């Protein structure tokens, strides 16, 4: 691991000696790193090195086995942490029977939030113009991923936790993710992104966590 402290604002994620073990068998850690507003962090590692597991720990879906993690100054999974965090995992959490637009509305409703660009405009922005009323079931793998990206961008979250956001996306999609990340960081947000290194974010990475398999 390479601990890198970016700026002087209080860190959005702070891990101290953080580690996770399944049945006392280590998956990753101990890790020390911090990520502040305006920064993009990469989690790099080979298949099975624990990238997904680390993100789930930070989201509060798994409890760390040792060490501590603070997310937005609170326990991972606490209300404060949840309120300011948005997560995108291997499973996108879209309802296949509802349309792309309805899915976005639900995502916003769960955060009690009505952003100004609006869900319809956002769909256009992610390249799904004309697919707003299409049920998600009948979208291709990459199109589903784009709906999830649109939802992410609509939520009022300062911190993004993204698991392989580039998978299944074409070249335009990859650029889209990079643009979203840049804009998010410019607005003072932070993002933690897993990647295999083949495709990933390169400009302005403020912190890299390397996991060993």
């Amino acid at each position: 691991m390479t601990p890198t402290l970016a700026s002087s604002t209080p860190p959005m994620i702070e891990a101290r000696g953080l580690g996770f073990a399944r049945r006392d068998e280590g998956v990753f850690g101990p890790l020390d790193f911090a990520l502040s507003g305006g920064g993009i962090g990469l989690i790099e590692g080979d298949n099975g090195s624990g990238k997904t597991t680390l993100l789930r720990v930070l989201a509060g879906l798994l409890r760390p086995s040792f060490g501590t993690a603070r997310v937005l100054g609170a326990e991972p999974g606490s209300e404060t942490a949840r309120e300011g965090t948005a997560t995108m995992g291997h499973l996108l959490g879209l309802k296949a029977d509802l349309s792309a637009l309805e899915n976005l509305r639900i995502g916003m409703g769960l955060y009690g939030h009505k952003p100004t660009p609006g869900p319809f405009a956002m769909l256009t922005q992610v390249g799904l113009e004309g697919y707003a009323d299409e049920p998600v079931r009948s979208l291709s793998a990459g199109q589903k991923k784009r709906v999830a990206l649109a939802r992410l961008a609509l939520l009022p979250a300062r911190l993004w936790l993204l698991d392989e956001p580039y998978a299944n996306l074409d070249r335009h999609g990859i650029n889209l993710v990079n643009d979203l990340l840049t804009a998010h960081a410019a607005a003072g947000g932070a993002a933690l992104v897993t990647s295999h290194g083949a495709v990933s974010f390169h400009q302005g990475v403020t912190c890299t966590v390397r996991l060993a398999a």
Partner: protein
Amino acid sequence: MSAASLGGAFRTMLVRDLLLAWRRRGDAMLPVLYAIIVATLFPFALGPEHALLARIAGGVVLVTVLLAMLLALDNVFRGDLDDGALEQMLLAPQPLSLLLAARMLAYWLVTALPLLLVAPVLAYMLGLEPAAQPVLLLALLLATPLLALLGIVLTALTAGTRRSGMLLSLMLLPLAVPIVIFAAGAVGAAQQGLPWVAPLAWLAAALALALVLAPLACATALRIALDT
């Protein structure tokens, strides 16, 4: 967390669930059809003897409604779990119990309400005495939400597992025994012309308690089952 945003989240969930049910309205009809068919099977299995059927009518309708609700229970979290929507719910800033309360209400509206509408028809077809009919309906009106609340808590406990609905039946049915006994007790008493208010009062008391506790218990159960 403001009250408005709480209400908004509750509404979002409720609308979402009703919308999903509407998109799959064929599926939503099926518990009813299932109940009709099971109730129809009994005359075939027992022979068409009228007195016998009338004697068991109340009980058969109760058990049938219970089993139909049980079948639909299995899917309460299954879909949301498989596509990751449940995780999104867990990660949303709103209290989980609130979102689950909306889920419970939607489940009752979609599954139990149609069953309540056909139950009198089934009871009539099996020959239940007219005097006992309103009591049966009243019993079901109290028993179905109770079953729904209890059932969803248990379903939440099995959410992390990939088990079929069978495990759920094993867990739910022992806990449902008192509900069945009281509901059947009221109907039986009405059939014999005895007073039937007491068992229903018990059910009502249990329901009041469950309405308060079940969403909280369900949130706890879900967090345990998904290990958060």
